[in-house]
């Protein structure tokens, strides 16, 4: 049966089975509606959705380069303003495009205050080129350029705090979300669109291929990230944290042991020292955002 797809993101795209970025794209378009112009950075999402001539996008869409989607979006916003047009502009990029190579353009566009939404689907490494580390890769994750080995336990640095950097630009609305909670993501996209000025959304997008878990577990892994405090869903308005998803926290091991990228922490033998460091990251997150639900005893 080949029916009409109801969404604005056409099926037939070439994302891996179980792809979180594809889920995010669908949800974002569902929230944004047809009067939206999408500016994609080079990356997985761009590649799996637009091999010529088979575009999956049913809204106006443009891709220029890896690192310039914010600048291209600036130009589009200026042009629309000049023409008196009302379409909304959303720039989409993976964490490599957003945290690393595109941060110059991103910072410039936010400082200038263009009215657009930047959405980063954060799968915590360069997945399109084969799982190399980025500034969004978490501590101790094994990637192809930060492999765990005899002398290394994987990525040496903690994840860059990009939402705070963008909040410091004076962005009126900054939020994190996860594909594990799609209705929440949808609401945040709607809110970002409705907010005037540059808004930033960072969406946790577990990557089955890059992180090493079965495709059907994408949502499960996303939920575990939140339940362990290694990913926090929150909203910031005018620089202040206004809403946080609270959880009854689980130990980080339950999240880590499900993924090949952390396997070296468990095999050949349990690395308690490193796991304790990752637990400390979660503890700091919990303290900073107040995510812990206190259970009555």
């Amino acid at each position, binding site marked *: *049966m*080949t*029916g009409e*797809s*109801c*969404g604005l*993101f*056409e*099926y*037939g*795209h*070439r*994302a*891996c*089975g*179980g*792809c*979180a970025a*594809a*889920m995010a794209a*669908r949800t974002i378009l569902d929230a944004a509606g047809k009067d939206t112009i999408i500016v994609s950075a080079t990356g997985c999402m761009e590649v799996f*959705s*637009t091999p*010529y*001539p*088979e*575009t*999956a*996008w*049913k*809204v106006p869409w443009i891709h220029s380069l890896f690192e310039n989607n914010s600048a291209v979006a600036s130009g589009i916003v200026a042009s629309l303003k000049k023409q008196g047009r009302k379409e909304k502009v959303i720039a989409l990029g993976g964490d490599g495009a957003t945290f690393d190579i595109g941060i110059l353009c991103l910072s410039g566009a936010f400082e200038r205050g263009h009215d657009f939404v930047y959405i980063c689907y954060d799968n915590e490494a360069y997945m399109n080129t084969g799982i190399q580390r980025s500034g969004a890769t978490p501590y101790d994750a094994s990637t192809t350029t930060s492999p765990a080995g005899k002398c290394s336990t994987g990525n040496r640095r903690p994840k860059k705090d990009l939402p705070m950097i963008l909040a410091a630009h004076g962005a009126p609305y900054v939020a994190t979300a996860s594909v594990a909670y*799609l*209705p929440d993501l949808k609401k945040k996209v709607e809110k970002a669109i409705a907010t005037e000025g540059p808004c930033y959304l960072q969406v946790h997008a577990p990557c089955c291929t890059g992180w090493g878990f*079965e*495709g*059907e*577990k*994408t*949502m*499960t892994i996303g939920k575990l990230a939140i339940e362990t405090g290694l990913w926090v869903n929150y909203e910031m308005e005018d620089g202040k944290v206004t809403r946080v998803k609270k959880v009854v926290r689980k130990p980080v091991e339950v999240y880590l042991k499900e993924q090949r990228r952390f396997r070296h922490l468990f095999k050949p033998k349990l690395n308690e020292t490193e796991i304790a460091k990752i637990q400390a990251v979660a503890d700091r997150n919990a303290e900073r955002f107040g995510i812990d639900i206190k259970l009555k005893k």
Partner: protein
Amino acid sequence: MALGLGCSAKPGKAKENRTGSWRTFRPEFLHEKCTKCGLCSLVCPEGCIAEDGEGQPVPDYDYCKGCGICAEECPGQAIEMKKEEK
């Protein structure tokens, strides 16, 4: 066939690529157990689960890659993944 100016294209042509051939496991929808909550349709990365007139989920097997998220997330265990037989 004329090329799109500057490598541009008309919308939605991805549909010509039938990703159903990727599938090794096939979701079978057990309508008697389905509560019509719509979660399977929401989480499907392909967006290829529609609803019939009764609100029952109808997958489009021309595009379903068989990732199994729908089965994994279904709160009523109303979707079973079966090995594809071609």
